[in-house]
């Protein structure tokens, strides 16, 4: 019976061991954020890169002596090729919304608060297009960028995938908001 007790204890403690792992995996994400403000025009596809480069060195290091020379030249060539397809696909508003709703990186209050701010921003755009406000498109862009940064700062540490998706879609979403016709169809 004492054996069962020991086994039971082991099983229970083993379950706990998995908890710290996600925390340890988070720090690298922080390094990704600086890329967020920088990509203004099309570097939206960059989020795909951060995942690739770290992976490449890892493969190269443990690899056999013959392999590294082959892998090294390929790595710099691959990212530029991979960028265009990633840039074409990113915008899926429904998926992004679903991801935001589902993420555990932010709490319920924060999600509602963010939604409030998104609604406020949408109203500002509506007012702008209806001529009800003197806000310029530059000011709206600033508000939009700030809101995106708020969301990213909340999400980047605990939900790397979502943060990447937001960064990738940032310019595309702006494209929808800043075009009166596209905005009307939202």
């Amino acid at each position, binding site marked *: 019976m004492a054996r069962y*007790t020991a086994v039971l204890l082991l099983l229970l403690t083993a379950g706990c061991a998995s908890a710290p792992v996600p925390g340890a995996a988070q720090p690298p994400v922080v390094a990704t954020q600086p890329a967020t403000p920088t990509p203004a025009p099309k570097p939206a596809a960059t989020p795909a890169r951060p995942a690739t480069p770290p992976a490449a060195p890892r493969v190269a290091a443990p690899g056999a002596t013959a392999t590294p020379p082959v892998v090294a030249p390929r790595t710099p060539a691959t990212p530029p090729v991979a960028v265009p397809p990633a840039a074409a696909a990113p915008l899926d508003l429904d998926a992004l919304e679903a991801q935001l709703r589902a993420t555990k990186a*932010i709490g319920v209050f924060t999600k509602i608060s963010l939604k409030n701010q998104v609604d406020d921003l949408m109203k500002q755009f509506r007012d702008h297009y209806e001529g009800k406000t003197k806000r310029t498109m530059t000011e709206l862009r600033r508000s939009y960028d700030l809101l995106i940064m708020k969301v990213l700062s909340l999400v980047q540490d605990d939900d790397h995938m979502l943060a990447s998706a937001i960064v990738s879609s940032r310019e595309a979403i702006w494209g929808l908001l800043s075009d009166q016709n596209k905005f009307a169809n939202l």
Partner: protein
Amino acid sequence: MNQRTSVLALTLVVLTLFAVPSSAQDEEALKKDLTAVIALQGMPCGQVVAAVEQAEMDYAVSCADGNLYRVYLNAAGRVVVETRK
């Protein structure tokens, strides 16, 4: 019978040990959530150190910098952060 009892007791002890951190984690998550909300509204706080539930989606919050707030969801579906004394 004696061994069964001891196993049961041990299991209960272990389960209790695991249950306590779980509720503590929930509380930490709530504090983090409230901290984020207060920051999003641009109010000074630093970090939420205590949160007391007054009603559903309605909390009395104490911040590390001494500020006290009421954070709640109003009828219009907006999260409101009010200073309280």
